[in-house]
């Protein structure tokens, strides 16, 4: 049984102008100890998926339909109290803005300990702090910094502390939402190394969210490319990057400058992302697509399997495939 299986997840935000379809019909699955990366432009719904999985959508967010099977249990059906228990103990999350994810007026160690104590009150504060020390060592933080406040930490240290915290209850799934965005390349490098090592050590499933393709490419077994609330291409890393099927994926890749390989001209994607309150009828990428055919406009695209485990949401692929 897969650790996590998401089927046809749709999440809307209620806004003044109507329902904003932030996530629309997303399905994927994740095995224990595997890693899955989501890539896409800003506003395509990556964070929303993460929040949806945690059951922590903002008050105006609603799950319209879908299923989130986690260890066989549908998280959308459990009660709030049960969901609370699942959080962190089973699924932990590393947030986008790690810089602010720690409470400024509490000592870092206490905050990490709190994560344990919430789910295991009988542990006792002493023991929890002991455990925190171990965690700190694990992520490469000096244990004498346990009693410091967050503002005394550098960005990288905060991120490590949060990773330590995410490991506090040994969860089986960690959702990492742009965990290194604010960091320097060298620090980012170290943090990513840390995450990978820990993932291996504890056999944790990771959902890795980023807008930086290169990071996801390095980190994950499977890649999901997102565009305007939809998953447009999904498959193993090698397949997606070596033979991208969806025009959007291709466009994205060619607009990304690289350090290796030949220095080619970048081809930017023209235009802008569609309005998610009134998304286009047919393919959402239609307006910006270089390879559009009239059918894309009217027909709602369907998933096309390119190769085993590699699929794309595109009319053209569908036609070509036929």
């Amino acid at each position, binding site marked *: 049984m897969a650790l996590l299986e998401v089927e046809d997840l749709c999440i809307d*935000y*209620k*806004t*003044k102008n109507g329902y904003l379809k932030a996530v629309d019909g997303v399905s994927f699955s994740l095995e224990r100890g595997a890693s899955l990366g989501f890539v896409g432009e800003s506003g395509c719904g990556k964070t929303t998926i993460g929040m949806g999985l945690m059951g922590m959508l*903002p*008050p*105006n967010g609603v799950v319209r339909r879908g299923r989130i099977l986690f260890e066989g249990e549908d998280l959308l059906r459990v009660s709030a109290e049960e969901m609370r228990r699942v959080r962190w103990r089973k699924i932990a999350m590393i947030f986008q803005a790690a810089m602010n994810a720690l409470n400024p007026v509490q000592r870092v160690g206490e905050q990490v300990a709190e994560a344990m104590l919430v789910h295991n009150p009988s542990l006792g504060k002493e023991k929890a702090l002991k455990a925190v020390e171990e965690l700190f060592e694990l992520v490469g933080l000096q244990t004498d910094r346990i009693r410091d406040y967050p503002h005394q930490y550098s960005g990288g240290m905060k991120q490590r502390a949060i990773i330590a915290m995410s490991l506090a209850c040994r969860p089986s799934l960690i959702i990492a939402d742009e965990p290194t965005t604010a960091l320097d390349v060298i620090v980012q490098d170290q943090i990513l190394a840390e995450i990978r090592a820990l993932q291996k050590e504890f056999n944790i499933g990771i959902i890795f969210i980023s807008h930086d393709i290169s990071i996801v490419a390095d980190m994950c077994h499977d890649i999901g490319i997102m565009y305007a609330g939809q998953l447009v291409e999904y498959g193993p890393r090698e397949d997606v990057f070596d033979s991208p099927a969806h025009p959007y994926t291709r466009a994205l890749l060619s607009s990304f400058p690289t350090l290796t390989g030949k220095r080619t001209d970048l081809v930017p994607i023209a235009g*802008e992302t*569609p*309005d998610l309150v009134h998304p286009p009828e047919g393919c959402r990428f239609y307006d910006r697509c270089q390879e559009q055919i009239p059918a894309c406009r009217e027909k709602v695209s369907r998933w096309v399997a390119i190769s085993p485990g590699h699929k794309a949401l595109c009319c053209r692929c569908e036609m070509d495939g036929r």
Partner: protein
Amino acid sequence: MAEETFRTETKGMERYPGLTAFLEGWGIFRQSLLGKIGLVLLIMFALMALCSYIPPLIDPMYNPMTGVDPVITCSTGPSRAHWLGTDFMGRDILSQLLAGARVAFMVGVSAAFMSIVLGTAIGMTAGYMGRFMDTFLMRLADMIMVMPTLLVVLILAAVFGQLNIWTIVLIIALFRWPGVSRIIRGQTLSLKQRPFIEAAKVAGASHVRIIFRHIMPNVLPLAFLFMTFRVTSAIIIEAALAFLGFGDPGTVSWGMMLQWVWKTGHMFKAPYWLLPPGICISLITLSFYMLGRAMDEVLDPRLRKEDQTD
């Protein structure tokens, strides 16, 4: 394509940015219950102030200060001729109440206006000039800020004799700018750091241009927001001063009415006289306060209710 529709929609209004901004603001304002209540109350008081000119025209006995009812020589309750009754001299309470609304508006708005002009000018100077000027002005502001304004005005009133209402207004303004100027200074400081100011500098803009074209338009909305809060404090200070007997004796203000009630010993037996002025002072401050909070929401994009669930 999306751009096309966008243009046709707002083509006419794009050229009038002020109007657009106003309409947008109004849209948000309208959603605020507090703002609506405040506005309704305020309109009511404005009408009262306007109506204050009417009673003396009907009969000189309705002159709020000097008119007395020829047959009534002591405080009486509401009657046909005097809807809210009369005070101890036989003067009409309603006319006084209406005149009080006028005074409250006058005091509140003019003192607030002066203090925000002063506060904005000083805050912008301090924030923009920095260094010595900043230190000096802000220490001055600190000093004035720690002074309880009412007591200061009280001392000035005692020392320089009974103050005329305009002097009171002026003094209130002189002592209520520091709060505004600190905020404006903070805002100016942060604006000064903003890249768009630097961009203007790099383009060669002079200090005058930066101050008036770039900083001022950005701090003015805030200054106006503060104006509503300053209005309330000015009204309260004037009323309290009048209540203590240090107001302008030539003016019928609500505070003055309360003082009369209190000092002439009618407060236990003439609720018709005690209640209206107090309710009016409280409500007018409430209305400006609510208005201010609603405007705060309009101006503060963080509070904008994009995620409004209703």
